[in-house]
């Protein structure tokens, strides 16, 4: 299993994560597919995505919004990609449409067959067992306008992920409180940091804070 979970931030802040990603890419002419969390204005995010990875020599990209009717021609090609990237945005809306279009199971198969799945913010949360971390803290959460009840996500890893984390007392309290409710660690990542999963190995890149059963552990020096 090959995964990269980005928290957010500018491309230059994520260089180490990008390098880790390219170490896993074996194809000399890889195909990168971008699945935005929602199609509105996603063209601009797609263009930014293309520009970011063009610098690494990638020359093949697909833009695959999932909240509009999908073309079979595009769908087939997306799941033949080397890398599929799940974009950031509203996590609830994203999950609703991934589920509605039957993409979740396709993504699981893609990863199982050796495909590399990357995700930013909402896209990274999507790889974990549940998207509950998108619903708190109240001062920094996604609106559940979709009124989604089933928050189960891809469940590819045995931890939860909190993006755009700020190491302040109010965040710390919220993370500790939530970590008491779950059986797996909660990794909170400030922008520019993230997690790389390469088969059985989990690598923390940048400052990643781990919350387990109400306690805070730093994964870095």
């Amino acid at each position, binding site marked *: 299993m090959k995964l990269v979970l980005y928290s957010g931030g500018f491309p230059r802040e994520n260089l180490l994560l990008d390098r880790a990603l390219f170490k896993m890419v074996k194809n000399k002419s890889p195909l990168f597919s971008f699945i935005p969390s929602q199609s509105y204005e996603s063209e601009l995010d797609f263009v930014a995505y293309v520009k970011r990875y063009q610098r690494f020599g990638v020359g093949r*990209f*697909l833009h695959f919004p999932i909240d509009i009717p999908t073309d079979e021609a595009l769908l087939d*090609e997306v799941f033949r990609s080397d890398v599929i990237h799940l974009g950031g945005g509203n996590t609830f809306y994203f999950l609703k449409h991934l589920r509605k279009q039957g993409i979740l199971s396709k993504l699981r198969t893609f990863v199982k067959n050796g495909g590399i799945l990357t995700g930013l913010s909402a896209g990274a949360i999507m790889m974990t067992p549940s998207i509950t971390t998108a619903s708190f803290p109240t001062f920094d959460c996604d609106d559940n306008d979709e009124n989604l009840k089933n928050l189960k996500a891809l469940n590819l890893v045995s931890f939860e992920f909190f993006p755009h984390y700020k190491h302040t007392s109010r965040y710390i309290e919220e993370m500790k409180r939530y970590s008491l409710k779950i059986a797996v660690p909660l990794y909170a990542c400030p922008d520019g940091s993230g997690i790389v999963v390469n088969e059985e190995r989990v690598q923390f890149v940048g400052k990643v804070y781990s919350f387990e059963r109400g306690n805070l552990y730093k994964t870095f020096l």
Partner: protein
Amino acid sequence: MVKTKDSFDYSPFEKVNGDHPLKKAVPNAFIEYGARKRHGGRVAFFNFALAREMGLLPSNHPDSLTVDLEKKILETFSLVIINEYDLMNNVHFPKEDILPNKYMATRYLQLQHPNKNGKTSGDGRSIWNGFLTHEGVTWDISSCGTGATCLSPATNIHKKFYQTGDPTVSYGCGYSEIDEGLSSLFFSEVLWRNNIETERVLGIIEFAKGISINIRAHRNLLRPSHFFRFLKLSDREGLKQITDYYIHRQKQNGDWKNIPSKKEYEFFLERVTESFAKTVAQFENEYIFCWLDWDGDNILMDGGIIDYGSVRQFGLFHHEYRYDDVERFSTTILEQKNKARCIIQSFAQATDYLQTGIKRKMNDFKTHPILKQFDEHFTYYKNKGLLYKIGFNLSEQEYLLKNCGKDIEEYKKSFTYFERAKSSQGKIEVPDGITCNAIYCMRDILRELPQLYLAKNRPLNVGEFIQVIRSSYATKNDLTLSSSRDRKIALFQFEYFYLLEKVSKFFKKSSRDIILNVMTRSSIINKYDRITGDSIINITRKVMKFRPKLKCDELYDLMRQFAGFQNFCPEKEKIITIKNSRQKKYIGGMLKIVREHREGL
């Protein structure tokens, strides 16, 4: 409404007082009306950015309606004319309500009028508020819904003057409605952001029962029909005055430069020709339906859109759509070019009349060299638009236009085959006219083809191509296999990639880099969601529902956000700054409508 400690200078509003240089320059181009204050209005919308650009507001004015600003807007624009009915019936108005200056209702040709010579036609429910010069640019400002003038069709058909607001006549009563203002607002702001010339809505003043005054602005509000009226009436002096006035304004605004002093009229004819050729090419490329006819109404002299009543933008090339105007059907989108050509023929007649003093017959200008120029300009802009839609940047477009004319024509043939393919269902009735559904969505194929080509490293096969290009209007019958269509699919892709290859060779860049560049630009230019006339109608309805809760500043913000979403400029930056959940709900609702109607009329 905002009460601010800062006080702003609103004195430029006082310059908009009915005075206008046209009055002196072309005395027979208008009728003057006295006016009085109209009470009970409130500012429903104000275009802060446009007002700053025009110099009505200082450059540091925020996007908010202060108490003082609303007062100033109402003082300047909330007015109603004192018309013939009022005078004949000695209708009494309080002295303090009567405004000191007079306002123009301009005369122009209108083919729906009983008198087709322009003797009785023109602004039927509008007046020109005035003009404003700021940073070297002069703007014209007019308002619709300011009372019934004697130039309306109703007055001339029924041979009587109407009281403003007379409920027995609709258009002739001199009022306009807020939904007209809103649909013009959303439509024009989207088109303007996409480099289509258009009038713009400066403000909307709302009264009880959905009545409104819709204020519009443009750098020059003259239409060809203003000129053609003098031509029809064989009034050479008037024609000379209005042409000289127009040339002067274009020069003054910096829109026309280096005008040869002894060949001003030739220059005028050439520039108008290029403007109209460019406009109709743009209309065809962008699927804009604007009812053009020989009278030169519904369009500005620079090809800008005015009067959004029957204007539409199609999602697909529904080239057989005709608007049903009760007494007659409109032109189709493809017939627009010939109507624009007719307008140019009339301008050729007009300039000849100005130069020789002899008014020759219109038929004598059928083979005038300017029409050849028109055709050349049209082809140039049509091709440029096609290349832009592929995703080529400006220098790539220029290289191809200059060096690869034949290749572009070959590509155009293939493109046109799919663009114009129509449903086997044939002609059908739609709520406001007739049409025949187009079955392919060119935006979709232009957006996805470069991506899929790079992914597959080969052109698309027939099945893949059809999956991408088929629209929701395509029936099973429309998509049945045919060897000729299969050949066209191969040919289309061949011509498309041939152009890319030409650019790659000339600019010494790899094919992959060129395709990548085209792919990113095309993904924005050919965005999945695009407004159509149908979506504007439904968005206006939706906004009308929100309206009781929507303040002027919020409506402005909503317009700005919405138009930003519909900006297809590949260089644009993301501007989403949705402020609160209510705005999110409104924008979400509007975008959903755009999506639902994206292939419609």
